[in-house]
Every structure is written in C-alpha cells, then in structure tokens.
C-alpha cells in the first residue's frame, strides 16, 4: 500500500518531466524552446492537480457511468456495502454503465473518494456470489491504493497521446508557413535537427506511456484477485465470474473504453494486441492464468 503511494509520487514526477520535455520539443519546433518548457510546466501543474482532484469524474464520464439507482440496483449497492465492510473501508460511490458488455472498474484518489462502476451486462449475467467476487476485486484495488496510481496513469497516457496527436497535426498542417518564417530568421539546419528530435520524441512518448501502463497493472490484477478472495473466502465464484467476463469480451465490446483507460478494467476491454497470448503488449495477465491461480486456492 505504501509502495503504491510512493509509486504515485514517482509517477507524478515522471508526468512533469515528460510533459516539460514534450513542451520544449513542441516549442522548439516553433523556435521558442524555453517558452515551451515554461508553458508546459505551468500546464503540467494545473493538469496534475486536475487529474488528482477531477480524475474520478473524468474517468466516470468517459466511460458513461451513471450513479446506481437505489431501488433498481439495490443488490449491487448491497454487495458493495458488504465488501467495504469486509475490507473496513468507507462506502464508495456506486455507478452502472448501461452496456451489455461484462466489465467493471474502480477509480478515485483514495478510499474516501472512490467509485466502483459495473456494466449492466455484468449485473444481468453473473449470479450474486460471482458479482460479489468482482466487487471484492475492485474493493481490493481501492484498499491497495491502485486506484490513485491507475487514475494518474490514465491521465498521463491520455495527455501523452493527446499531445503527440496535436504535435503531429501541427507539423502536417502548419508546416509550410513555419518553414518560411524559419528560413528568413536563421539558418534552418540546427533547428531542423531539434525538430527531428522532437518528432522522434513524439513517437517514443506514447510508446513509453503504454509500456508504463502495462508494467503497472499486470501484477496488480493477480494481487487484487488474491485480496478479493481474502475478503469473500470464495475463490470459485470469482473464477467463474472471470470466465464469463472473458467469454463475453469479444462478443460484446465496451463502447466507452479507450487506450487511456483500458488498464483500469477487471478484464481488458480492447484486446488490441492479440490478448490471447500472455504477450509483452498486454495490460492484463491472460484470464486463463488468473482463473488457474484462483482454482488452486480453493
């Protein structure tokens, strides 16, 4: 738990560094690297504050999660209440996602500001014990402070992808006028090299960001599965729940999921890199491996 809080601090430092470097590369392309660096620093500070305090709302909004209905979703709310009692945590906010896909996630900056979101499909397809297992898994993410780390990762990856996109477009569309201005001001060769470095960096940054995202979340899923069993004392229910979730992944995709948020879900909703294999390119361990570990517990 303390490890995750330290990781969050490290990650924040990383966000600053990357954003500042990107700002400098970005500013450099227009001939003002210092201005780019300072602007990026200010924007990064605001951005990190926003991600920390507003990240929960943003992730919930992106996933089109709605607050659970106290009457219709009584059972879900009860299950969350049961699991937060077992974990000795305050009650998180409960959300539903109106989709037939089977998935769930938790987010927030700490257990006092946490939210659990579950798809309608999951509520309909799982029995009470299985749903309890999934909720326990999410509650473990809250208890371990995974949610803060994952939220910051989502913000970081989102920003890097966005900036790289903006940069790419501005190079494409703003190219001719800038080249004209540059050649009239000073010799172009040095600036061109710096611009090239900027471009290389723009290509590498998203790659680095997704590598980070993967490294952070894979072990974490096994840990959350194990902690969930510690809460429910029922490994088989979680195992069958994962099986059902896994079987439904390809049949019913989750509309709100994106590159920036794929790692927060209980099972990866994108599967973009051929997730059947336990490859380097997966944010999640293969579900079969998770089920095997769970079955061994019972």
């Amino acid at each position, binding site marked *: 738990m303390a490890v995750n809080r330290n990781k969050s601090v490290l990650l924040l430092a990383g966000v600053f560094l990357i954003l500042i470097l990107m700002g400098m590369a970005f500013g450099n392309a227009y001939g003002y690297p210092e201005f780019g660096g300072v602007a990026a620093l200010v924007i990064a500070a605001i951005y990190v504050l926003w991600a920390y305090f507003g990240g929960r709302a943003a992730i919930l909004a992106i996933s089109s999660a709605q607050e659970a209905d106290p009457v219709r979703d*009584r059972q879900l709310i*009860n299950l969350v*209440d049961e699991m937060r*009692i077992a974990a*000795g945590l305050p009650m998180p906010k409960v959300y539903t996602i109106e989709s037939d896909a089977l998935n769930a996630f938790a987010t927030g900056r700490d257990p006092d500001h946490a939210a659990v979101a579950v798809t309608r499909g999951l509520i309909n397809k799982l029995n009470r014990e299985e749903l309890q297992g999934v909720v326990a898994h999410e509650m473990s993410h809250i208890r371990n402070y995974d949610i803060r780390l994952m939220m910051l990762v989502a913000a970081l990856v989102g920003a890097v992808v966005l900036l790289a996109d903006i940069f790419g477009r501005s190079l494409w569309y703003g190219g001719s006028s800038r080249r004209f201005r540059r050649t009239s001001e000073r010799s172009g060769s040095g600036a061109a090299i710096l611009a090239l470095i900027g471009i290389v960096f723009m290509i590498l940054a998203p790659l680095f960001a997704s590598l980070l995202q993967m490294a952070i979340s894979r072990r974490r899923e096994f840990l959350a599965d194990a902690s969930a069993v510690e*809460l429910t*004392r029922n490994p088989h229910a979680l195992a069958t729940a994962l099986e059902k979730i896994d079987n439904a992944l390809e049949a019913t995709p989750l509309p709100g999921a994106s590159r920036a948020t794929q790692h927060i879900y209980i099972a990866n909703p994108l599967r973009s890199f051929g997730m059947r294999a336990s490859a380097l390119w997966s944010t999640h361990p293969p579900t079969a491996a998770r089920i095997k570990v769970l079955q061994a517990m019972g």
Partner: protein
Amino acid sequence: MAYIIVLALAALIVFYVVGLYNRLVRLRNAVRNAWHQIDVQLKRRHDLIPNLVEVVKDYMSYEQETLQKVIEARGAAMNASGTASVAQAENMLTGALKSLFALMEAYPDLKANQNVRELQEELTSTENKIAFARQYYNDSVMRMNNATELFPSSLIAASFGFQREEYYVVPEAEREPVKVDLR
C-alpha cells in the same frame, strides 16, 4: 557537537515512541469501531424481520412453526444482554432465518412476489454484512494483538496499559451446514 547528536537522537526516540503509541490507539479504536459495525447490522436485521414475516405469512400458512421460531429468536436476541448471551441469541436467530429461507424456496408464488424478493435481498445482504463485519472485527483484533505482543511496540503497549482484544468465535453449532426438513 556531541551535545547536538545526543539531542537529535533523543528527539528521534521521542518521535518513534509517539508514533508507536498513536498506532496502538488507532488500532484499538479500529477494533471498537469494528465491534459497533456488527451491532449496526444486527439492529438492521431485527428491524427487517417483522416485515418479512408479515409478507410471508399469508403464503406460508402451513409453516407457522418456523415463522414463530423466527419471531421468538428475534425477541430473544433483542432482549439479550452481555456479549456471550447476545452472541448465542443472535446465532439462534441466524439459524431460524436460514431454515425460513430454505423453506421459502419451496413456494414459487412467494419467490415471485416483488416485495418478498426485495426483503429477501435485504436480509441476505444483512446476513452477509454481519458475517463480514465479524470477519473484519477479527482482522482488527489480530492487528491489535500483533501490535501489543510484537517487539518493540509491546514495550509501549505494556507501559500504557494496552490490552489484548478478544476474537469473535463462531459457535460449534453454526459451523455445520443447515439441515432442512421439507416434509
């Protein structure tokens, strides 16, 4: 120079002791809070039972005996005082409720009733919450006991009178699966 080092060391030790003391207080409060969590859920169960019996009794006219047992167990649990007798009475109530739930399975009309379904969900959840609150209580007790017995916090615990806490122990009878007589 030596003077400053001694002073710094003394300050460090004071901070460490204060930290350990605060940890023990926090753990003790957690144990007490966990205990009250159990009470909250027990109270909720007592409040729900009359509603369930009221809704169910028209359908289950042949099961008066079971319903009567639930009502009696509820009364006994509410009147019990002292940790041991409360625990015993509540366990009686748990048993009575379990047999009522098992019997309800045999009445399809009953199970289709929206009111009954909601009440059953609430009671099932409350039963779970009681169990999980006890589980968490025992976890808190374990953390407290570890802190009072493990070195070096045991030294602080002994000098400030922190006590071991008692585990909640499940009575033998409750460990057996419920037997249902459907006649």
